[in-house]
Structure formats: structure tokens, C-alpha cells
């Protein structure tokens, strides 16, 4: 009995210990962002600010450039997410519910693209983006990354669990394939679509390499590009950078908190199961 209690206590201790490490880096940074610049490099350092201040945030929000970067990130992430959800749901549905010539081959092709990440195709992808007139242009950030093999896979798995009788019944009732998809299947697919939406938003919001390759113009920078750019090699304006970093985390956090239940559930049930 005592051994069991000790074991339980040990488990909780371990959980709390790990939770501390998961939280402390960000907590430290968030608290530091409320310190006045003079306090930031005090020795000995403190966890909590001695004089709380909103000055860093006020400065950041008064900077026209920061607001532009935030707006750019928002536009790119939202539009790309909408496109991602639409086209991957379409493809995943087709692979799950139709047998057509070449379906297996095309599906394998889609999955194989997983093995060729942007990192190894930077140069030719950059070239294609240029040739198609998407260079230094939001289109290059919105369209190419919208197709994701993981998304197709996720939706396909989801539609395997939807009975085919539904399609048959709709056909007998004389509904067109398009009408069946739009009016019957899309409402059913809402859970998997929201998982896809949350992921896509997070990926696009946090992405660095695509914007780095596609965007040249300062005015079109996304937040991540701007943050990386402000982070100079020798001197770093930590007051602004900390506040900007904290603000940059908020949108994803909000999306996560709103959809938390569906998110974890969706990832666990329809996620990367073998």
C-alpha cells in the first residue's frame, strides 16, 4: 500500500518536473518582455520584473513595420489554410471513395513527395516560383505549400470510415457526385477538416524557409522573417525582439485553445496511426 502511494507520488513529481521544463523557457521570456530595458541585463538576473512595464509592447505596436509583418503573416496563413483544407479534402475524398485509372500510382506519387522536403529542393523550387511569377509575391507563399501529402492521407483515412452506402444512396436519389460531396460529405468531414485547418495555420504561421526563399521585399516580410532579420549577429535589440516574439506566439495559441479538444482528439484518432 505504502509502496503504491510512493509510486503515485513519484509519478506526479516527475510529471510536474517535466511540466516545469516545458514551461520555464517561455515563462522566462514572457516575464522578461515586461522588464524595462535597463533591467533586462541586471546581475543577478531575476525571474520577475522589479518594475513592470508595457513600454516594450507599446513600442512594438507603434512600429508601422511590425504591424505590416503581422498583417502579412495573417493574410498568408489564413488564405493558405483555406486553400489547404479545400484541395486536400477534395483529393483525400477522391482517393477514399473512387477507383479510377492510376489511382494507386498517383497516391504513391503524393506520398513520395514526403521524402522530398523543401530543404533539399530549395534551388529548383525557387526557380519554379520565379518562372511562374510567384516570386516576391504572396501567391508563392500561399499556393505551393497548400498541397500536403499528410493532409491527403489524413482525409483519405477519415473517409474510409464513412460507409459507402451513403454514396450509393445519394446516387440512387439522383444526386450528382459534386452535390454529394458538397452537401453530404463536407458536413461529415468537419472534424478532420478542422484538424487540417489548425495544423495548416500553425505550419504557415511558423514557417521560415518558404518566406525566406520567396520574399525579397521588406514590405512583404512575414513575422518569422522579420524576427530572424531583427536578430542581428552582434547587437540584438532584445527589448523589442522579446515583445515581438511573445506577440507572434499569440495567434497560434488562440487557435490551439479554441480547438484544443478536437485537436488532440483528432490527432490521436485520425492522426498518424499505422
Amino acid at each position, binding site marked *: 500500500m505504502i509502496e503504491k502511494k510512493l509510486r503515485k507520488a513519484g*509519478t*506526479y513529481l*516527475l*510529471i510536474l518536473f*517535466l*511540466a516545469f521544463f*516545458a514551461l520555464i*523557457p*517561455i515563462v*522566462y521570456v514572457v516575464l*522578461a518582455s515586461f522588464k524595462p530595458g535597463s533591467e*533586462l*541585463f541586471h*546581475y*543577478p*538576473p531575476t525571474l520577475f520584473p522589479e518594475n513592470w512595464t508595457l513600454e516594450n509592447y507599446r513600442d512594438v505596436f507603434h512600429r508601422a513595420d511590425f504591424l505590416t509583418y503581422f498583417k502579412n503573416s495573417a493574410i498568408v496563413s489564413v488564405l493558405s489554410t483555406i486553400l489547404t483544407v*479545400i*484541395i*486536400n479534402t*477534395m*483529393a483525400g475524398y477522391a482517393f477514399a471513395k*473512387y*477507383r479510377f485509372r492510376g*489511382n494507386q500510382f498517383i497516391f504513391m*506519387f*503524393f506520398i513520395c513527395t514526403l*521524402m*522530398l*522536403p523543401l*530543404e*533539399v529542393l*530549395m*534551388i*529548383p*523550387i525557387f*526557380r519554379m*516560383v520565379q518562372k511562374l511569377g510567384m516570386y516576391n509575391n504572396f501567391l508563392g507563399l500561399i499556393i*505551393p505549400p497548400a498541397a500536403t501529402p499528410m493532409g491527403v492521407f489524413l482525409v483519405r483515412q477519415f473517409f474510409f470510415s464513412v460507409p459507402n452506402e451513403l454514396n*450509393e444512396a445519394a446516387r440512387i436519389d439522383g444526386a450528382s457526385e*459534386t452535390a454529394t*460531396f458538397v452537401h453530404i460529405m463536407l458536413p461529415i468531414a468537419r472534424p478532420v477538416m478542422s484538424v487540417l485547418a489548425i495544423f495548416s495555420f500553425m505550419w504557415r504561421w*511558423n514557417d*521560415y*524557409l518558404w518566406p525566406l526563399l520567396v520574399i525579397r521585399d521588406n514590405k512583404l516580410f512575414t513575422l*518569422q522573417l522579420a*524576427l530572424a532579420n531583427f*536578430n542581428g549577429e552582434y547587437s540584438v535589440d*532584445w527589448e523589442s*525582439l522579446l515583445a515581438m*516574439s511573445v506577440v507572434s*506566439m499569440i495567434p497560434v495559441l488562440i487557435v*490551439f485553445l479554441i480547438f484544443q479538444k478536437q485537436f*488532440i482528439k483528432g*490527432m*490521436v*484518432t485520425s*492522426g*498518424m*496511426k*499505422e
Partner: protein
Amino acid sequence: MKRKKSGITSLEMRVFPYAMILPNLLIFTLFIAVPVVLGVYYSLTNWKGIGTPAYVGFANYAKAFADKRFWQAFLATGKFTLFALPITVCVPLLLAVLMTKNVRLRGVFRAVYYWPSMISYIVVGLTFKFIFGESTGVINYLLTSVGFSKVELLTSKTNALWIVVLATIWSTSGYFMVNYISGLQSVPESYYEAATVDGASKTQQFWHVTIPLLRPTIFLVFVLGFLGLFKSYGLVISMTKGGPAGATRFVVQYVYDKAFQNVEMGYASALSMLLTVVLGAATIAQFALSKGGRIND
């Protein structure tokens, strides 16, 4: 589930599935398939970003094999992956095992553990740079206050690499934890009941029931972890910029710099090809060695 194959396959039925996959097919073709071919082609040329590429045969590859700085970056990446991979595989497993136990506030802790994976690599890098940087001095303050002497952190080659490892583990563990949780939940409860009846302790159950049944997930995390680590870029860029003295300059950064700073597109394409081959070969080798992570050998 494939009834109704013949008969009323209307024109719509035949065209519809192709129309549905068309957008993805177009994007994958234009931004993956064509670039693969282009990439191979560029790697055989001396293309400088403008003008027409001139064919140079395998000169770029020969140059790559003699490029000391490339191999230095390659070695640094390998070392980093070697250090980080075992931890990348094990820590999330520990988190998942804890988070599938019947503990209070489980949902909250799951969210807490998952949280770091929602933060961009750039911000993770900045966060760790701020904490481990010499200017803020937190870590050295903590070390000296418990009796250790001051150490060089991001300015020491070895320590910088380990701090990058730490930051990477911190930022990826939550994501892999979710994979493990779904794997753990698919282990039938009856297996544990049977093991308990046979008198197996919790520890024995973990090693002889959980681990063997979890092999596909462990394998998946291993492969994804390897690929992710080997192509690390954003995090190091914002944390160390590849320093000190190239200790954390990894292959992707080297290729990027060659391509977009030195504008040696042809040469950088050859380096990309080498990276692709290494990543592909390692993935295939891992598949072969683990027999695809199947449960039954």
C-alpha cells in the same frame, strides 16, 4: 467495398475523381516533380542564377567531395543528429507513458507538454539564445549559485551544440508525444490484464508488452526524428547562426548560403543532391534494419 463497378458509370463518374485530385496533382508536379528533374539538371551545370546554365558534367560533385567546409558541415550535422536522436525518441515516449496513466489534470499536462511544439523554430531559437546568451547570464548565475564555476555557453563549440540539441528536443517532444499516445492507446487492455494474471510487474509489462507492440510508432518517430534533425535550419539560424566557428553550421545552412549568398546555384544543387541521397539512403536503411517496424518479426 467496391460494388457497382459497371453499368451506370456516367461521364461525371469518370471525370469527377480526376477533377478532385487535380489541384494537388498540379502543385506536386510543378513544385516537386519538375524541381527534382531541374535539380538534377542544375547540379550538372555551372549555373550562377542568371544566364543559361552550361553543362559541366560531374565537376560539381568532384568539387563537393573536395570541399572541406561542406564535409565539416556534414560532420557537424551528423554529430548533432547522433546526439539528439536517442533523446528525441525516448523523451516523448516517457511523456506519453505518463500521459496515458490515470492521473489528475491529464488534459492540462498534455497541453503543457504539447505547447512547445506550437512555437516557431525562430522563436524557440531566440528564446534559448536569450536564456543561454552571455549577456543575460541566467544560466551562469544559476550555475554559480549552486557552487559550479562559470562556463562558456554559446561561445563554446561543444556546449553550443548541446544547447542546440536541448532546444531541439524541447521543441519537438510534444509533437512526438502525441504520436506515442495514439500508439499506446491502440495496445489492447487485455494484454496487460493477461500479463498481470501471469504475475508480470509493471516494469516487465512495459518491456515485454508495451515496447514490442509500440515498435511501429517507435520506428516512425525514429525516422521522422532523423529526417527532421538532419535538415535542421531555422532553429540554428536564430540561435547561433551556425557558430561558434561553424560548430552548429549544418548542411542545409551551407547549401542555402552557397546558393543564395554566393549564388553558386549549380554547385549548391549538387550539394542538395548529395543531401537527398543521404537522407533517402538513411531512411531506406532504417526501414530495412527494422523490417519496417512491423510488430511480428
